[in-house]
Structure formats: C-alpha cells, structure tokens
C-alpha cells in the first residue's frame, strides 16, 4: 500500500468537502448552535451570560448526539456512492492505485474535514466562554470534544460500510438516514419497550444499550463531567457500581472498535468487488 496515494486522495476529498455547500452549512449551523448553547446553558435564567465549560459541555452532548451522527453518516454514505454512480470511482480505480488506497484516502480526507468542522463548532463556543472568563474546567470540555470526534469517526466508518455494500447513491444515503434514526431514536425507545415487555436483567440491558455508539459517547461524556451515571437511572447506577473506573476506558475502546471494525469490513468488501463492476455494465 502506498501512503502517498492515500494522502493524495485524502487531500482531494478534503477539498471536495470544503466546497460542499451542505457541509459548509452543517459547519456553520453546528458552530452557531454550539455558541447559542454555550450562552443559554446558564445556571440562572434572569441574566444571559456564558456558562462554565462543564455546563456547556453537558448541553453540547445532546447537540452532538443529534447532529454528529447525521452529518457523519451522510458524508460517509454519499461521497463514495455518488462517485460510484457517476463513474468517477471506476475511473479512479483504473489508475495506478489499489482499492485500499482509494477507500482509506477517501475516509481520511472526509474524516479530516468532519473533525475540522466539529473543532470549529466547539472552538467557537470554547473561545466565547474563555473571553467571558468562564474557564473553570476546560479539561472536561476538551474531553467532550474528543469523545465527539471519536463518535464522528465511528459513524463515518459505518457510513463507508453502508456505501460499499449499497451500490445506488440514493439507497446508500437513505440507508444512512435509517441507521441514524435507528441509533438516535429507535435504539432508545426500542430498548425501553423491550425492557418493559421482556423484563431483561439490568446487565443485559446495559450491554445492549452499550452496543450503540451513541450510548458509548453519552456514557463517556457524562462520566467525564460528573464521575457517575446517576442521570441515566438504574442502568447508569449499575454501570458505575459494576465497572467503576474501567467504564470510561471501556467506552473509549468501544468507540474505537466501532471505527476500526466497520472500516475493516468495508475494506474487505470493497477490495473483493469487481472494481469497475461498480457501473454494473458486464460487457
């Protein structure tokens, strides 16, 4: 594998992302919302002032849970699938590059753009807080940003896996949105319903919930702010008591696995494709 080819393709992807108006819109929206949340997350509501890093980080968790999976899955599914549909991917693969270089290059480029977008959003809010002198605990804020970046990378990997498996661009993006709905809404509600109906033991519920990368992020981010998961109810209390200080590293490793495994499977699937069958023209 040629690292230089990965870098060349990554640079092109980064440039494409920066020219993508939807991506720019997301970046500006995220930065605006992060800034607004940092202003609105005040302890008392009588006078608007910027809140502390921890409080802002807590508010941003919900923003991240909603926005980051959406943009990560959309970027992951749309880029590769649309290149395949236009034939640009087949043409690229007819050059002196191999599959792994192309897929990794696209992943790295998209990931850098995505992380830059997140850092800008968090950065704007962080700078605003600093300017207001509310820098009591910047470490928890930085850790929240770190967890958000891990979540973004994990969901980008899932997006790439979907794009590799599903050939049509529109189907790939729709599948990405379906996965987003599943992870963000149906996952929680479904688990609650299953818990009530099946009376699952609490450790089983915890593990099922923890398979969702969004829950991994939520647990990591909350632990980072307040050292226990009481806010998550009985499951949170169980997890804190059962796993203690190991819980946070467990969640980080979980997010890393969600990044590595889908991308690894995507590489295997992509490398075994008859490359230029991507346009499905067998003769």
């Amino acid at each position, binding site marked *: 594998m040629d690292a230089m080819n990965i870098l060349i393709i990554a640079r092109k992807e980064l440039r494409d992302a920066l020219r993508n108006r939807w991506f720019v819109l997301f970046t500006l929206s995220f930065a605006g919302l992060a800034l607004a949340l940092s202003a609105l997350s005040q302890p008392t509501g009588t006078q608007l002032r910027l809140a502390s890093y921890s409080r802002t980080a807590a508010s941003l968790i919900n923003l991240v849970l909603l926005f980051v999976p959406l943009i990560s899955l959309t970027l992951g599914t749309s880029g590769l699938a649309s290149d395949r549909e236009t*034939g640009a991917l087949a043409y690229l693969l007819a050059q002196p590059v191999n599959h792994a270089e192309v897929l990794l290059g696209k992943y790295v480029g998209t990931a850098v753009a995505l992380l830059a977008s997140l850092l800008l959003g968090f950065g704007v809010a962080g700078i605003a807080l600093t300017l207001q002198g509310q820098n009591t605990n910047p470490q928890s804020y930085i850790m929240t940003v770190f967890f958000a970046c891990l979540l973004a990378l994990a969901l980008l990997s899932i997006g790439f896996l979907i794009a590799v498996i599903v050939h049509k661009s529109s189907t790939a993006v729709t599948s990405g949105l379906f996965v987003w709905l599943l992870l963000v809404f149906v996952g929680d509600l479904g688990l609650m319903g299953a818990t009530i109906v099946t009376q699952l033991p609490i450790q089983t519920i915890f593990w099922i919930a923890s398979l969702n990368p969004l829950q991994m992020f939520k647990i990591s981010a909350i632990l980072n702010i307040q050292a226990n998961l009481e806010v998550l109810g009985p499951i949170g209390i169980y997890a804190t008591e059962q796993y203690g200080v190991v819980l946070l590293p467990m969640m980080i490793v979980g997010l890393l696995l969600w990044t590595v495994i889908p991308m690894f499977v995507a590489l295997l699937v992509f490398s075994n494709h008859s490359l230029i069958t991507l346009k499905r023209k067998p003769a």
Partner: protein
Amino acid sequence: MIDAQNITKRYGKVTALDNVSFSIDVGKSIALWGANGAGKTTIIRSLLGVHSFGGTLTVDGIDVQKFGKRVRQRIGYVPQEMAFFDMSVLETLQFYAQLKKVNADVIPTVLAAVKLIGQDPKRVSALSGGMKQRLALAIALLADPKILLLDEPTASLDAHAQQDFIHMIQNLNASGKTIVFSSHRFEEVAALADHIVWLEGGKLKALCTPSELATDLGLRQWLRVEIAREYQSAAISSLSDKGYHHVPNGKAIYINIQTHQKVDILRLFDESHIPITDFDVTDSYAVPQQEEVS
C-alpha cells in the same frame, strides 16, 4: 506486448468472456470489435486488472492479476463515459499526475498534445463532450504509457470531434504507442486498426483485418478510379452493364463495391480496354459528392 490466454469471466450465471485468447505486438493498433454485450469492455477491465478472471493475461510481461497496479502504470486508459471529479482541468491533471507519480511539468505538454491549451482554468463540467474526451486522453498520456486503452473512444462525439480524435490516436500510434480500443463503428475500426479481435457473445469469433471484417459483414467501400475524360462514358457504360453503383466525380469515378470486388473492377476496365491512370480505396463508407462529367 499483450498476451491473453483463455480469458474467462463470469458475472454470476452470465459468461461475459469464454476462453478468449489473443496477442498484440508492440506498436500495433488493435480493435476489440463486437456488438453491445460481446465482451469488449470486459476485456478492457481485464487488461486494467480491475477484476478477477480465469486464464492468464500479461501486459509488457507483467501478470495483470498479480500486479494490476504496475500494469495500470503502463497503460493510459480513456473510458467510454467521461467521469471526472468536480475540479478544474488543471486540478484534474495535477491530481492524476500525482497518482501516476509524474512531475506536473508535463502538464503543458500533454495539454498541447490534445489541443487543450488555455482550457486549464475551466471547470471540467464546463467542457464539451469532445473536450472531456481530450482531457481523458491527456490524463492517459501523462505518464507517457506504452499502451493506450480506449473504450468506445468516439461513441459520444459528433462527427467533427470524432475525426479530430481519430487523427490524434493515429498520430500516437505512428509515434510507437500500442493502441487497444473497443468499437462497434466500422469507420473507426477501418481508420485506426491494424487487426481486429472480433467478439460475439463473449467468445472469440475471429482475429482478422479491417478489410476481412468488412467482407465478412458485407460492408461496402468506395473504389476511386481515375480515368481519362475520353474514356469516362465507356467506363460508366461498362459499370452500368454489370450493375455497379457508381458516382462520377470530376476526373474520377467512385464505384461502390464490397471489399473483395476491387480486382473485379480493375479486370473489367482492362477487358474493356479502358486505361486507368490511378485508383485507391477510400477509408470512408459515406457516399461521395457527385459532380457532372464534363
């Protein structure tokens, strides 16, 4: 240069190529001829090493299946459908030059070779079909490859752009490059190919010359015969008697024939004591302009 032995490719239950063997010498121009679905594009994909297949295929002595990337370094590929990323012409060339490990200094040279000078700041999406085709050729030429592989190179071009593009490929072939192209347009094959790999339903039907293919297909050409003015009436009369369709054009007569009938015409004029001052077979299969014999 290229040696294919028993190439077989299946897509599920569909056999796209069935034991196809051929070889191509250095500097030759070879047409992959056949209808849609004959297997032309599958051979091109095999040559690029971008899918697995049965049999053996070597390019410049390199096994395509084992070293596809090295083979692609030696091949300049022009696809049938131009699909570029959303960049300017210059950015596109820079991007592919980097992937081919070629210094960007060659870009002005290839732009000149394909007559795209001055187009480099334009977005690729703003180029016409013919210009996109030339850009693909420029990309193919970046690494000065030994082999040019073209998939239906003029299929989406208008008549003028087709002639222009064919002329460029002829020049490249004359400069020593091996040309492999797929086509189902006989005029293109007649203009470019030394030999033809004729495919039908994924099988090799024949290895032949353009002239043999024309005969086999029952295609007709125009034989241009120059005859002194005083013999033209007699010549036209002889041709009419034998039922040949002909078109007088100045001091020449164009005679519509099947490719194997050239000698028949010359023999007819000889037997009729009509002296011929010159003759040739036109590349074009179109009807020539008629002019009155004066």
